[in-house]
């Protein structure tokens, strides 16, 4: 009885109510206000150098701008740059020409010096940057990463509107991996010591100067992020005056879409039919650029045999998972590569439990060996996938146990390399195939990179590096395809599916183009309008 009373007085509950009460008050004005769903609460560090965090990325895509952007086809397009960069014939010089006459949201002029400043911050691990490794082929990049130099000699601004990168050897993937770095204002941050950059008040409290279409106003913890339009945005005035980003669960967001409290929501595949039946709601989707997978920790002696991973792939009916549990709103995955880098002769690992049992018998798999799958629960499709893995792997004789963990717990497990298997997803491997290097190479084992399987295949690494240094496109993609075949055969992870990102929005919202990258729904927000 006491428990029931306590549950009613749960402080988070009452906070929620007061939050939505405040919304109603802010409604009636003449300003147009868009209420959008944020899929997780932000980490509240809006620094481009901070470790990647999806919800913070949504915010940074609105308040900052970058030289290049990625469109819903996962192709690069110019934003602050006037065009895609020119790459010299020897592949050693990358030249960006910036748009002229641009100003920051506070009226200060935007120049190539801001770009040099930002790229230097990104290349310096002292700023908290986790991306310094990407600049290993830039002249002076390794010195800054090692701490023997303060600025990268290879980043220069020959004039106000030109930004140049000098390389020591060709690195084709660099543009795709670094062109979309959010540019931060030098005139605001110049006096912040480099070591204090990751805790600078500008990044953690009030990033209110930017080049993006909106300006940061306020973050009410766990309630909303308030943004207002940037009067000096490069494409002229933006139509929608204010945006509120609200971190709620997708279930709540979907319900609020029906009541009109929410205008733009990412929905779960099983809810598609319900939402389509709502009045005045439009639905659009885009294919994802990452995928949902399960890394198998190869530092554990009992998980090292590739036949085990192959058996797992055969044991799980992934096609039916896509067709039935996800209603067909996902694509199959059998390697981390996409588009032109993906060969069409990969082993599809079609559902075949007998083959799985054969492989396990061949390698003398101990059926009493318990394997634990740890993941952060809360996303419906992932939870379902975990349930199905548990059931179908046990069926072929792999004793899988499920272990739901909190985000902090999983970080600890990653640091200690203590998990057996972990289920997660995301990433963008469609724009630039070299992005796969960060999740599969010997040198990118966590925490140096995103390789959570601790897989290491030197031939694979060699092919990847060679591809990235090959300027000729056909030869480059041929190398990537060879790498993909190795990855597919060794299966460092249990590939599950590539989910479509499904957006539902009020029909009053015009100009919305659904993006499969769920961290960037606002990629063309300047073209949106809201006609209520």
């Amino acid at each position: 009885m006491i428990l029931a009373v306590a549950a009613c007085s749960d402080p988070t509950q009452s906070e929620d109510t007061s939050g939505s009460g405040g919304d109603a008050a802010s409604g009636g004005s003449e300003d147009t206000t868009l209420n959008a769903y944020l899929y997780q609460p932000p980490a509240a560090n809006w620094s481009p150098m901070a470790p990647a965090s999806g919800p913070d990325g949504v915010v940074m895509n609105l308040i900052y701008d970058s030289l290049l952007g990625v469109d819903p086809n996962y192709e690069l397009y110019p934003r602050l740059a006037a065009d895609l960069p020119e790459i010299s014939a020897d592949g050693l010089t990358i030249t960006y020409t910036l748009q002229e006459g641009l100003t920051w949201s506070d009226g200060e002029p935007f120049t190539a010096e801001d770009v040099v400043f930002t790229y230097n911050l990104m290349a310096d691990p002292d700023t908290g940057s986790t991306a310094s490794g990407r600049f290993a082929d830039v002249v002076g990049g390794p010195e800054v990463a090692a701490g023997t130099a303060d600025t990268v000699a290879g980043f220069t601004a020959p004039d106000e509107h030109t930004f140049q990168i000098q390389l020591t050897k060709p690195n084709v993937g660099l543009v795709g991996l670094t062109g979309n770095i959010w540019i931060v204002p030098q005139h605001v941050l110049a006096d912040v010591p480099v070591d204090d950059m990751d805790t600078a008040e500008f990044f953690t409290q009030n990033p209110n100067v930017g080049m993006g279409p909106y300006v940061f106003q306020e973050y009410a913890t766990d309630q909303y992020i308030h943004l207002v339009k940037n009067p000096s945005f490069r494409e002229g005035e933006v139509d929608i005056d204010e945006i509120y980003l609200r971190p709620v669960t997708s279930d709540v967001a979907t319900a609020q879409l029906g009541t009109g409290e929410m205008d733009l929501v990412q929905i779960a595949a099983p809810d598609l039919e319900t939402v389509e039946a709502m009045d005045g709601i439009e639905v659009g989707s885009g294919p994802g650029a990452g995928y949902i997978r399960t890394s198998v920790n190869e530092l554990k002696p009992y998980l090292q045999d590739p036949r085990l991973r192959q058996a797992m792939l055969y044991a799980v009916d992934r096609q039916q998972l896509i067709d039935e549990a996800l209603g067909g709103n996902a694509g199959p995955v059998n390697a981390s590569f996409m588009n032109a880098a993906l060969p069409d002769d990969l082993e599809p690992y079609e559902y075949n439990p007998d083959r799985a049992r054969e492989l396990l018998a061949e390698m003398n798999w101990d059926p009493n060996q318990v394997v634990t799958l740890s993941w952060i629960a809360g996303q419906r499709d992932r939870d379902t996938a975990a349930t199905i893995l548990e059931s179908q792997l046990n069926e072929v004789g792999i004793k899988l146990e499920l272990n739901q963990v909190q985000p902090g717990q999983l970080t600890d497990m990653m640091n200690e390399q203590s998990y057996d298997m972990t289920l997660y997803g995301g990433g963008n491997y469609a724009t630039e195939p070299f992005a796969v290097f960060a999740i599969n190479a010997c040198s990118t084992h966590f925490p140096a990179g995103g390789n959570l399987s601790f897989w290491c295949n030197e031939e694979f690494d060699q092919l990847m590096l060679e591809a990235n240094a090959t300027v000729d496109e056909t030869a480059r993609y041929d190398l990537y395809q060879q790498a993909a075949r190795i990855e597919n055969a060794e299966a460092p992870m249990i590939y599950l599916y590539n989910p479509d990102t499904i957006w539902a929005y009020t029909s009053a919202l015009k100009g919305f183009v659904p993006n499969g990258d769920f961290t960037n729904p606002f990629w063309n927000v300047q073209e949106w309008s809201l006609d209520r």
Partner: protein
Amino acid sequence: MSDLRPSLDTPEVTAAEEVVATETDTAVRSRRRSPLGMAVRRFRRNKIAVAGGVFLLLILLLAVFAPVIAQQSPTAVDLGAIRRAPSGEHWLGTDASGRDVFARLVYAARVSLLVGVFAALLAVLLGTIVGAVSGLFGGWVDTVLMRTADMMLSFPSIVIIIVLAGILGPSIPILVVSIAITTWPTTARLVRGVTLAVREREYLHAARVAGASRGWMLRKHIVPAAMGQIVVVGTISVAAAILAEAVLSFLGLGVQPPQASWGNMLNDAQSLTVIQSMPWLWLPPGLAIAATVLAVNFVGDGLRDAVDPRQSGRS
């Protein structure tokens, strides 16, 4: 000493009744029946309580014979039959992974009863010891123990449980322990009250003069005197613990998948689609929780009336 004990044993049983009576001094009762027999008679006259008891017995049978009653496995997924409506094959339909909802419901009864009963037992045990020691010893022991109990009572218990589950990782033993350590103060205060009253009665003075140790008085007089009320508060605690288990599992901090519990089955009901068009996924576990908790509370009320007839009809 040895010839004192038997003579003390006789008033012991009536003590339980008399303690209650001392508060108002209006006890008039038949001396022919034993107090226990009278309590049983009173309980059996309370139709709602008996109905609650029968229902609980039913749930208990369901839990014990789950493998016989449910033909399907509660954890077997069937990707060919996801979110199917109730049918001959699946009496209560299937969930998002194609698991049989009826089988999960039946197996989940085990978890709910297990957590409910064990958490309540642990809480009552802890509360009885603390309450009796507190009341019997008095002084600073009493102050320390009772202020601790007050502290526990003034925290929102669900928050404590969530923090514990978050730190130690969610599992059934953690669930039982964390529910117990947030509910014991209720029993402790009750038992302390009874102890304070009994402590001043003549037969305990006599026992003390005769050289009875505190432990002996505790075992032989104080706990038996409070037993009636302990049973009542224990029963109510079972209901609270079942609810707490459901809440935590609903939040994902209780019983872990793939094991079924009524709470984590309800987790599905957060989805608008499920609420609107798939009642078979949330109605059965919801009703099961409501009915079981109601039944436990009815039994608890019945027991209270039976133990303490002056309270009947006044609740």
